């Protein structure tokens, strides 16, 4: 670590912006919002201030402050809005999960577990910042990430390890730990695509040779193929989007977008023919009221839930979002829509847009192609995943079960998103330090 990167020794032009002070202010504001929401949700439900509001406040402020200190120590120049936006989404999601009061099969409540996952996620966020002082070093392990990503994707298919749940085989049970390896595979694949395309992209740009496309084609085929085998359409769409965007980004050939779209449509048609559940999803999207008690049930209940919320919502704890199946996970956006209204859902959209904007700004300003591509890839992961599930819940696109980043309940998803966040923070720090060092023209 150079002296410049250490705390208090930012380049003067950057230090004047006081990015960490801005971040601390935002974090404090968000802490107030989340604690208020937590208290209101409890008041709305039981007319009592939660008994644990003190410990909750302390725990949350502790976690938030810990994140802030870690960024201040290990990436002091980073963009000050990325982390607060993630914490806001995480906090709102946690309040809703706690308010829904669901229990885990086999004991324990979801909210308690989610708070543990948040702590683990923040822990891994800090660990990532520490372990990866320079994003570039990731590129050295490109094939490790590529193979690792595919292995993680395939893991749920391994007999005795994978578990099928709710029709999708995306879970892995290793001893006492259950997790969704796909959530981590997407990061590994984004890193692999970024580093591979830095070189291959130049080649593809000039002359397209099949040979250059083999590794990346294999990665794509494996990811999509595995996803189809695991019947996880949401993740499949996400990886596909990641792949197409990064190919286009690296090569500059718009052809890849067209090709990607064509392949996507073709894949969709094949899937529609091959898999009854794809057909069901499409039918439920086009007209859920044709089968209101079965295939259309979830989306109809989500629609009623959000309509109930209207402009300003029923108020936290005052609605009935538990009438929607999977309200803590896939449909948490509907639950927020019911109790916080259009105002709340619009706020969530804005938070994601701010995150996406920051991510793309990092990509634009990054000095080297690998960092640019990685920033684009990671941002695309967050942007597309959030769009797929929110679009599905509001019936803009067919519904596919996938978590809303930072908001939904789910350990693997939350932890992996904090890793994505850490990488973006790392990239931001590097880019801003580099930019500050350049003489102003």
């Amino acid at each position, binding site marked *: 670590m150079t002296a410049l990167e250490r705390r208090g020794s930012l380049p003067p032009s950057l230090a004047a912006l006081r990015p960490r002070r801005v971040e601390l202010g935002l974090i404090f504001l968000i802490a107030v919002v989340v604690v208020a929401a937590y208290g*209101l949700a409890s*008041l*709305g*439900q*039981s*007319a009592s201030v939660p008994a644990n509001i003190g410990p909750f406040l302390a725990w949350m402020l502790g976690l938030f402050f810990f994140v802030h200190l870690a960024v201040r120590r290990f990436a002091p120049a980073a963009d000050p809005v990325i982390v607060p936006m993630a914490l806001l989404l995480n906090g709102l999601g946690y309040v809703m999960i706690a308010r829904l009061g669901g229990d885990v099969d086999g004991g324990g409540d979801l909210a308690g577990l989610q708070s543990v996952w948040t702590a683990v996620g923040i822990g891994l966020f800090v660990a990532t910042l520490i372990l990866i002082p320079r994003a570039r070093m990731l590129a050295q392990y490109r094939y490790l990430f590529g193979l690792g990503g595919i292995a993680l994707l395939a893991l749920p298919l391994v007999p005795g390890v994978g578990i099928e749940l709710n029709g999708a085989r995306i879970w892995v049970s290793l001893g006492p730990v259950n997790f969704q390896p796909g959530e981590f595979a997407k990061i590994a694949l984004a890193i692999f695509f970024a580093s591979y395309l830095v070189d291959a992209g130049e080649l593809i740009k000039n002359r397209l040779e099949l040979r250059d496309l083999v590794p990346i084609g294999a990665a794509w085929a494996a990811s999509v193929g595995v996803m189809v085998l695991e019947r996880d359409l949401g993740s499949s769409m996400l990886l596909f989007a990641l792949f197409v*965007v990064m190919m*286009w*980004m*690296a090569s*500059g050939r718009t052809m890849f977008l067209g090709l990607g779209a064509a392949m996507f449509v073709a894949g969709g048609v094949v899937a529609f023919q091959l898999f009854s559940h794809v057909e069901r999803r499409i039918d439920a999207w086009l007209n859920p*009221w044709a089968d*209101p008690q079965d295939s259309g049930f979830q989306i*109809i209940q989500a*629609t*009623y839930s*959000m*309509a*109930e*919320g*209207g*402009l300003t919502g029923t*108020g936290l*704890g*005052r609605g*009935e979002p538990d*009438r929607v199946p999977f309200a803590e996970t896939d449909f948490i956006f509907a639950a927020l*829509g019911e109790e916080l*209204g*259009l105002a709340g*859902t*619009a706020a969530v*959209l804005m938070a*994601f*847009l701010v995150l*996406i*904007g920051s991510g*793309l700004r990092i*990509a*634009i300003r990054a000095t080297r*192609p690998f960092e*640019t591509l990685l920033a*684009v890839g990671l941002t*695309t992961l967050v*942007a597309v995943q959030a*769009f797929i599930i*929110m*679009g599905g819940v*509001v*019936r*803009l696109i067919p519904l596919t079960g996938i978590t809303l980043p930072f908001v939904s309940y789910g350990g693997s998803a939350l932890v992996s998103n904090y890793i994505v966040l850490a990488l973006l923070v790392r990239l931001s720090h590097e880019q801003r330090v580099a930019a500050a060092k350049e003489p102003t023209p």
Partner: protein
Amino acid sequence: MTARIRRLGAVFILLYAVLFVQLNRVQFVDAEDYRTHEGNIRPQLRAFGQERGDIITADGVVVAFSIPVEDSTIEFRRSYPTGERFAHVVGFQSFNQGAFGLEREYNDQLAGERLDQQFESLKDLFVDRDTTGTVVMTMRDDVQQAAQEALGERRGSVVAIDPTTGGIVAMWTYPSFDPNPLAGLDGTLVNETYSALLDDPDDPLLAKAYREVFFPGSTFKLVTAAAAIDTADISLTNPVWPQANVYSPLPSGSDLRNFGGSTCGGDLREALRVSCNTTFAEIGAEWVGPDGMVRTAENFGFNAAVPIDLPNAARSNFPVDYGARLADVDHYRAAEDAEGDGPFLPNGDTPIHENSAILAQTSIGQNDVKATPLQMAMVAGAIANGGRMMEPHVVSEVRSSDGDVYDTVEPSLWRVATSPLAADLLQEAMINVAENGTARNLAVPGLVVGGKTGTAQLGTDPPNSHAWIVGFAGRPGEDAELAVAVIVEAQPGASEQTGGAVAAPIARAVIEAYFNG
């Protein structure tokens, strides 16, 4: 690459903008459609499944309460422990058919959705389950039970009302229905039960006591008598009409006779005692006239919506159109008077109209005069209360679950039905009817009781009629505390004795239950 990243950013912004537009559709533009969507059971579940307050009688009997439902998306259902006894008043809350009776009229208070209930404390700003209201009725279970038992399995209605407040003490109609199956959770069963009740020719769902009108027969003579005193200077003792068995209406029309062809007459007190048709026909048509009769009937609440705190009350009817004015009575009767056949006629200038013959009929409660049993109880009540007719109501107050009173129904005057003088005289006359006349079966030892019978003939082959009685009762030396009306529908026979024989004992049972309770 920068240009492509910007384009990617534009694509993301576009996607999220479309998402935002769709959100606006779901949550704002089309939200109302979705909220009231046919398949959206949220509103029904919310109304049906939430806890509601109790409905209790004035003597503390719980007639409706919420019981928790296990293992269902519906949290509570209603239970009606008194079954059919209060079904017509309390109504029921059903998932498929909506709410009826007090369950409908006091829905907000029972559910605790009124602003004063919601915002009693800051705590209530967030939760509504502690705000459910208890609705306290003016009705008494013991009196209602007496009405139910005394009427037995005869179609009819019993209404007992506190004339000083308008508070309804009992209101029973047979046949009634058990509301419990209609509040059930099995929608199919509820619908079947409801349809079966709708198809029943006796119409058990209909609270006839206040939602159905009947020919009031001779009980209506009380209104005619009040009109006579208020508008035609008639007293209980003057004039004295000659004994007659037939009344020939002016300007023309078929003769009108007394029950069984009997002969009667005398002063107003005597005419009321024996319920003399011929005398009252003449009083209405030739002494009071159309204006006075219509005005008095309307003062007594006919032709108006009754301001009761229950849904769909029926309007009692008194015909208002008697055609064009022709000439004064003495134009027609002068010759008779000159011959000295008639009495002294201060009514010489009463106008005769084209349809005064019909007025003669309506004056004795025939033709198209129709009244609810509630209306007739209010007629007796107005006479017992110095001419002041109070707004009828079945609810006295709404309390919070802690027993604090949110709302009290204050007694409120509906109309001045008649003058205090007429009320006094008619009280006296009605007491006479109960002591010496057709309503002797109404008398209760130790109480001051007044009454008037009625027999509204429906047909002659075989003869059958509605048996009526209206009356009031009080302790000696005090104001009357209770006014009653009883109708027993379509009883065999058609004599003026029918009302006294059939209906009076029922009214007496109600009076006894009230004063002994």
